């Protein structure tokens, strides 16, 4: 079997993505580092991924701030009404 020194861009970007969920293994970290060293496309991807998450989280937060996590008085009353039906 042929030993692959380089992982594909698909595999490399998968690891870039995985980094946000888990700690990579030592081997994965090494393989990724080699790939990123040699591949400017995936290097851009890695940087953009972090930037994109940051920007999109900020957008989501801005949108959430415009409607705070508080039940409206109407909704509150409607819920109480539903609950009292069960008593």
């Amino acid at each position, binding site marked *: 079997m042929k030993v692959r020194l380089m992982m594909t861009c698909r595999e490399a970007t998968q690891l870039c993505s995985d980094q946000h969920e888990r700690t990579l293994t030592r081997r994965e970290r090494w393989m990724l580092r080699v790939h990123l060293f040699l591949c400017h496309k995936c290097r851009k991807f890695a940087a953009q991924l972090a930037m994109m998450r940051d920007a*999109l989280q900020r*957008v989501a937060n801005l949108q*959430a701030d415009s409607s705070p996590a508080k039940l409206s008085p109407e909704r*509150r009353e409607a819920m109480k009404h539903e609950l009292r039906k069960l008593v």
Partner: protein
Amino acid sequence: MPKNVKIPIGEPPTGDPPTNGQHGVDPADWVDQYGDALLAFALGRVRKREVAEDLVQDTLLAAWVNRERFDGRAKFATWLVSILRRKIADHYRRDARTLTASSLEENAPDPFTPKGMWRRAPWKWKADPAQLAEEAEFQRVATSCIEELPPHFRQAFQLRDLGDASPKEISVILNISPENLAVRLHRARVLLRQCLESKYFGLAARTASPHRGSS
């Protein structure tokens, strides 16, 4: 303003939780005591406000119906959250079921060749996330790009990158393995990156904005 508070559920105001159908317990009080905290928790996992509110209501109703099952070992608030978690998972299961027919993940364009190379190289972006997020045009494009994701990818992305849920919790909610979740997140992020590039950064490059664009 507080938004997606991490674990927003506080202690019940007084020592013992109002349960077991003791006399004088009015479940409507739960709305005031726990409603906002449950809503904050739900909004960290479900983006649509009406859906989140419905889930909170379902949770309180279920809690009242099953109040004998609360054994007092956990905090009452924790027990409510455990019910809410199940309601959220149910919601995603329903959501996924209605979506399977309409959306075939395979239809999403694969940004890589069969050999695993980029079909189109990523461009260079120059942008500051904080500045981007304030921009109305970026907000519009971002929202529509997220909406356009194939639903299974979108669910994973919203829960993970926009919400508060941990990968483990998301695997439970979506009823998929952690490996499958990792694959969905990868696809979602790659597709989203591509969408932003063609609908936002690409235009920015053509109009040669001083703030952003390719070079």
